[in-house]
């Protein structure tokens, strides 16, 4: 593996090379492990669960590399995030079966979408996800978008957000519920 060449290679090319020599996959793992872990942690709020999801995601990416090669016009990054979201959802369903009620996945965003592949999230992830989310948050009133932003992007606990916003936990929970519902509605309009 030549480090200088690797810097100029696209993710798709690295994935292709990794099919012949799995050590190349370390470049993709190095590049995406932390953002994936952040996102998975944002969903599960549990490091161990997040690590399991990230590990499963990378293995799925490697195993199903041929499916990506067949989908022209889609960037590796958006496809990889789609795999991550689907893996998180599968993990959630498994946990729900074994442990009963699991709260880590946001019910407002996920319960109505038994198949993420056909949900709005896939479309968001295929496009410019950050810009779409920012646009939706911008349309929302400040008192609803701010807690949502802090909770999901800054990964803060309810207690911290309540302190920052100077409101009680129960008020925050109500606002979060309303914010998620509004976010979902706006997202559907956006897509």
């Amino acid at each position, binding site marked *: *593996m030549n480090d200088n060449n690797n810097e100029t290679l696209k993710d798709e090319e690295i994935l292709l090379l990794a099919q012949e*020599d*799995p*050590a190349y*996959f*370390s470049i993709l*793992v190095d590049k995406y492990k932390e953002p994936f872990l952040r996102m998975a942690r944002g969903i599960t709020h549990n490091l161990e669960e997040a690590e399991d999801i*990230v*590990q499963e995601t990378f*293995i799925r990416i490697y195993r199903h590399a041929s499916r990506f090669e067949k989908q022209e016009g889609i960037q590796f990054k958006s496809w990889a995030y789609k795999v991550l979201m689907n893996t998180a959802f599968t993990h959630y369903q498994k946990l729900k079966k074994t442990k009963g009620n699991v709260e880590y996945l946001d019910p407002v965003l996920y319960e109505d979408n038994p198949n993420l592949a056909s949900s709005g999230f896939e479309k968001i992830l295929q496009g410019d996800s950050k810009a779409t989310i920012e646009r939706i948050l911008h349309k929302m009133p400040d008192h609803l978008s701010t807690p949502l932003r802090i909770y999901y992007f800054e990964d803060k606990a309810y207690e911290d957000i309540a302190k920052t916003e100077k409101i009680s936990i129960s008020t925050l929970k109500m606002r979060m519920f309303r914010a998620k519902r509004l976010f979902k509605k706006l997202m559907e309009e956006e897509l």
Partner: protein
Amino acid sequence: MIMDMNITLLKNRILWKVYLVWFVKKILPLIIFELLILTFAGYVLAKYIFVERVVGNTLIIAANHPWSLFYYLIYAFIKTSFLNKAGIIVVLSLGALLLRDIGRVIVSYRTTNQVTKPKP
């Protein structure tokens, strides 16, 4: 610090699993296929070639002079029937492919081992 260690351990876990997927999906079926054909070709060849005599003659000739061993093998190959020649070529080619695949497993194992080693 602990977070960094966790991330490194996670990376190692992922890469070893990926190595295993690569081995099981790409290399193992190939090695099994090559071994099956090689065994079959070897069995068929053994039926038509007196391996014991060839080995015996080879040892006698090698004891005289190492170079004559090379000439003897070439001569024996030229003098054998067309089917035997084809069989020998198949066995040698498959042997070479098998060695190449085993080499790939070893090289990939070493590279994966290198990339999963903690950097100083």
